[in-house]
């Protein structure tokens, strides 16, 4: 299962790679990364068919995660990728907007990787 992680913090990348070390080695999951909403759209433009799940931060300079979500929902609907939103501000407003714009799930930072792993595993089964 290919997962695209969108976050402006570059260190998110080694973190995911190490957290899912075993899963990656066993080819359960495959991760790709984008550093901004724009980056993510660019990536999806070429590879949207491969990506099953998108994990996106909400608070990013430039295009926000919510905007990215709207664009994805607008442009890619066959088949629609799963989108999970992540934010440091775990507030109602963001949650409501994310759900309204068609997010499949909503996670708050700091990420609970055990929980995320479980969620991903149920998805991939």
């Amino acid at each position, binding site marked *: 299962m290919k997962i695209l992680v969108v976050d402006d*913090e570059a*260190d998110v990348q*080694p*973190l995911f790679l*190490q*957290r899912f*070390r*075993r899963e990656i080695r066993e080819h359960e999951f495959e991760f790709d990364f984008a550093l901004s909403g724009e980056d993510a759209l660019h990536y999806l433009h070429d590879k949207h068919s491969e990506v099953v799940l998108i994990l996106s931060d909400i*608070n990013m*300079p*430039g*295009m*926000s995660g919510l*905007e990215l979500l709207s664009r994805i929902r607008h442009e890619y609907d066959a088949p629609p990728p799963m989108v999970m939103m992540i934010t*440091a*501000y775990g*507030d109602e*407003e*963001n949650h409501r*907007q994310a759900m309204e714009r068609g997010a499949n799930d909503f996670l708050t*930072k*700091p*990420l609970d*990787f055990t929980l995320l792993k479980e969620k991903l595993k149920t998805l991939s089964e």
Partner: protein
Amino acid sequence: MDFFYFLAAFLIIRRINKSLKFSILYPKWKTMLSTATWIIIVGFIASFALEDYAKDFIGAAVLFGLIYYASKEQDFTSQHSYLLANIPLAAMGLVNCFSELFFDGFHEKYNEYFSWATLIAFAWIFGKWATSKKQEEELRISAERRAELEVLVQERTVELQKQKDELQETLQELKTTQAQLIQSEKMASLGELTAGIAHEIQNPLNFVNNFSEVTAELIEEMELELDKGDKDEAIAIASDIKQNLQKIMHHGKRADGIVKGMLQHSRASSNVKEPTDINKLADEYLRLAYHGLRAKDKSFNADLITHFAEGLPEVSMVPQDIGRVLLNLFNNAFYATKEKQKTAGTDYKPAVEITTHTKGKSLEIIVKDNGTGIPDEIKEKILQPFFTTKPTGEGTGLGLSLSYDIVVKAHSGKIDVKSKAGEGSEFRISIPV
């Protein structure tokens, strides 16, 4: 005619007596004066028995003696002009005496004239006395007036001194208030920052936690690999662990730097200039300002565009003060874009741009936004203390005026403003390298 000399002498004594009557000198002269009076009376009576010329001589001598003695005496200086007025009479006495003695016939012939002259000399005393009395009166009045004026001046001086003291006190109070305002402005901006700071600290802390956890897992895995004998994999894991520890350190320092920056910001400025990396400073405050605003308005989003020139010299400045200036400019820029977003269409994208470069012998920092801009009619006022366009309670109106003080007064720099209402603003700060 000799009667006049004694009368004049008698009057001199009387006059001196009168003038001294209420002064502390009176006891000293009292006996002397009454003695002198008696001498004159006795002298006058005694002189009846004498020849005319002798009478004149004694009268003139008494008068001259008295004039001479009294005018030498310090205690009688106030009577000086009166004494001098007696000289013609005394002189007349001598003239009478000599003419009677040596030119008796001549004197007899013109006796009438001599008598007239003596009388006139006597009358002269009173004429002189009257004018001098008038002068004295005038002098007294002017002295009184001067005294009055002096009292007035005194009163005014006291009043002015009081006013001056009050003003000085007020000035001192104003200075204290200003210092308090500066501090509260700092605290207000710190308050705005708190959310941004929390966010900024949260991120590195998450990394520290996450990387620590994952590293613990990796060590377990490494042990497993070693048990299995997969040395290559163990080495690969070890290198990841090493990398993670570096990341933990990096993010720990990042959080540390933010806390330190926050403390620096809240602390009363030490005013110590030190070589400062302006790009680092600007980046730090840009993020803080952005996240501060985001924390308040979560739907707000802006493009942060940075044009940091590389290899800039470190410029001597008070970092927390310049940091405040930047923070203020960023806050204003975000505020302006946020305001514009309320009315602009969905196509509008808030953008705040920061540029650093050197220009000539100055370091230039340009903060530009595409917000509401500043209308021409208030452009002049924006640097004035307490001027704000924000609703009551939202802005102190001190941000830009303090920025001006910091840049222009404390760093000998310049602030230039370019703005067009509805299109955005550009603040250009230059600081001499």
